[in-house]
């Protein structure tokens, strides 16, 4: 239909930057050795692998040995929660929120089946957790608190500094799923009182299938997957060298450009939000400004999200939706329910997630095509009554 392509689904995944790919290529070709091998080929690779670890640690304000390479955010989260539960052995209590990613939320549900008890803290209408609710939820048998740094759907930033301080005060482990934040906003683990932090490279223009887990010095979980001695036995298996190199490069670039990028994304974001809010019966989901620089999430009342997605897609715009019909499940997102949206409103939510490569023209284009789309779909809708003109 159109040849224009606008990718606004950076929250789902991002393109690999050319510099990142360039950094990776030699590790498919010349430097293919196994970093555990003793020979020159292996040693050369080991050196670069450790250099990548240094870079990542440096950006995060951590020590190199606190960085464990994993296969992505899902694995990092599972290692922490299952590993902490396994280490504890006896059933205990976990505190998390009602808006975590499935890779935390569903793990907690599964741990409940194994006898652990879990408190899922509510959030306010902006999707924010109250640090005092964390404090109140702590029990003598609470062994870990897991609160995401920013929500992937609605973009709301969480008060992880305060929650980390409360956890430290009560000597409870604190984990933050920072998959949506690393590479987007500054994070300094020399200040943040987190024991564990999860990140995933493909969310910041690095490759898919690789991530990292920060595990603070002196703290250790029981490994779930066992095998060779790699990654301090926390994450065994031949290291995914090219991807790790790519992740380090992507994070290095993101850190160097962070100020400028987050400023420009915030501007684009706010333009898109105010443009969308011009349309009748559109509401913004998430916090008005304490949100990820690239995250825009709105509900178009009287319209189902997937039909908006599809219409956008037919005009070359890639976005995503918390609608049940677009997720393969039948229920709308637990996040949108947690912020109190009724079913039809939750079903009408669309996430535009901006990132590397998006510009003002993209915003113009979306704002240009969206009124006709919503108009058309509302005319089909049984619940929409157009205002008299």
């Amino acid at each position: 239909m159109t040849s224009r392509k606008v990718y606004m689904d950076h929250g789902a995944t991002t393109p690999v930057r050319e510099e990142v790919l360039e950094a990776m290529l030699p590790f498919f070709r010349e430097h293919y050795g196994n970093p555990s091998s003793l020979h020159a080929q292996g040693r050369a690779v080991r050196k670069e692998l450790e250099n990548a670890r240094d870079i990542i640690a440096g950006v995060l304000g951590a020590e190199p040995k606190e960085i464990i390479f994993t296969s992505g955010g899902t694995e990092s989260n599972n290692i922490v929660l299952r590993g902490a539960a396994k280490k504890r052995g006896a059933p205990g209590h976990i505190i998390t929120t009602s808006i975590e990613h499935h890779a935390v939320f569903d793990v907690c549900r599964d741990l409940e089946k194994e006898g652990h008890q879990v408190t899922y803290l509510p959030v306010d209408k902006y999707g924010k957790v109250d640090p005092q609710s964390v404090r109140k939820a702590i029990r003598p048998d609470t062994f870990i608190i897991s609160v995401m740094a920013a929500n992937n759907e609605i973009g709301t930033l969480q008060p992880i500094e305060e929650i980390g301080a409360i956890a430290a005060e009560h000597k409870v482990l604190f984990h933050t799923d920072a998959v949506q934040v690393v590479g987007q906003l500054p994070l300094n683990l020399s200040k943040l009182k987190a024991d564990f932090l999860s990140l995933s490279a493909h969310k910041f223009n690095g490759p898919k299938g690789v991530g990292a887990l920060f595990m603070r010095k002196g703290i250790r979980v029981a490994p779930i997957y066992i095998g060779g001695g790699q990654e301090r036995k926390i994450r065994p298996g031949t290291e995914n060298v090219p991807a790790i190199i790519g992740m380090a490069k992507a994070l290095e670039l993101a850190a160097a450009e962070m100020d400028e990028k987050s400023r420009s994304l915030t501007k684009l974001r706010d333009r898109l939000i105010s443009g969308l809010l011009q349309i009748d019966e559109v509401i913004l989901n998430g916090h008005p400004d304490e949100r990820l620089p690239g995250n825009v999430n709105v509900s178009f009342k009287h319209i189902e999200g997937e039909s908006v997605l599809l219409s956008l897609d037919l005009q070359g715009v890639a976005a995503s939706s918390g609608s049940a019909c677009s997720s393969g499940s039948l229920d709308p997102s637990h996040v949108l329910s947690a912020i109190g949206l009724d079913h039809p409103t939750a079903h009408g939510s669309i996430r535009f997630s901006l990132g590397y490569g998006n510009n003002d023209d993209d915003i113009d284009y979306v704002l240009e095509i969206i009124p006709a789309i919503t108009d058309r779909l509302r005319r089909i809708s049984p619940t929409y009554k157009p205002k008299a003109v």
Partner: protein
Amino acid sequence: MYNEKVVDHFSNPRNVGELENPDAVGETGSFKCGDTMTLYLKVQNDRIEDVSFQTFGCGAAIASSSMLTEMVKGKTLDEAMKITNQDVADELGGLPPLKLHCSNLAADALHDAIEKYRKKQGV
């Protein structure tokens, strides 16, 4: 994901809107996935003379609604009662498996409308 015919019915749905003075109005809603559909009928001599719809739903739901209205126009009520949701999906050339349940509203709304019409007629 969707074939061309589905995309066509989604992009250019036939028979959208309310009919004036309809002889019957059928309604259906999937509580689970949140879709709802309203179907308007004009009937003459037990034959569907005109039909229109309004749907809140995903691409599959809208395309199924549109497809159904094309399928029933001119049919007798008895013929129309025999149309199943699967018939609608088939007529569209198939839907993705995960989306089949979203097409389960069009025939339901039609049958609801016909039953209401018959009740009104005292059949």
